[in-house]
């Protein structure tokens, strides 16, 4: 069991990441599929990993407390676990209605 877990933790898995409104503009694309390390546990972990990818991400997530996230179409807090989520979204506070 330990061996299996360790192998998984060291690997990567593909997730679809989607961006909206000014997060989309700053990142520079509406969506991408990335192979993310399986040892990223929470949304906050993923944000830190994304910020290391380049200036666009750095700008988009400059204030981590502002950007909201959703896991498979459900709102999620930064400390939420990514689990097996296949689509992760990042966006500014909503202004519909």
């Amino acid at each position, binding site marked *: 069991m330990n061996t299996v877990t360790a192998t998984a933790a060291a690997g990567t898995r593909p997730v679809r990441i989607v961006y*909206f409104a000014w997060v989309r503009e700053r990142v520079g694309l509406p969506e991408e599929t990335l192979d993310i390390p399986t040892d990223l546990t929470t949304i906050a972990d993923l944000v830190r990993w994304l910020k290391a990818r380049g200036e666009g991400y750095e700008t988009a997530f400059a204030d981590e407390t502002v950007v909201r996230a959703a896991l498979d179409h*459900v709102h999620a807090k930064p400390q939420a676990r990514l689990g097996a989520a296949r689509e992760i979204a990042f966006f*500014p506070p*909503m*202004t519909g209605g």
Partner: protein
Amino acid sequence: MFSPLVRIQREDFSLQDEIDALSAGRADIGAVVSFTGLCRDEAGTLAALELEHYPGMAEAEIARVANEAASRWPLLGLVAIHRYGLVKPGEQIVLVLAASAHRRAAFEAADFMMDYLKTRAPFWKREHRADGTLGGWVEAKGEDDDAARRWE
């Protein structure tokens, strides 16, 4: 039990058609409250609002809010329609309809739906200005969060 009707669409909608559909062939409804949100021209400075949304999640999230409303109040019908794309001043953006036997449930459910739509439905507004320039993204208002917190 009834299922709330949720629609996310580019086209305009008709309040009358939705009320007619909601109340056709029944006489148990005593109260219908509607909320219609319209695009304001901001004293002539706005040419249009561009509404971006998250397809899939928008429907799912509004359905969650509608089901929450249906579990909180003794409703007989609930409709939520939200447009996306370009909306001009004077045009309709959002519609909420709540029907019940007595007025309190319909008023509260419609009010609740709008507070939650504002703060939870994945839509973002950007301004297109009358002078031809692209305005900024509309900022979320703290008072909307406060309004939503009334229902907790």
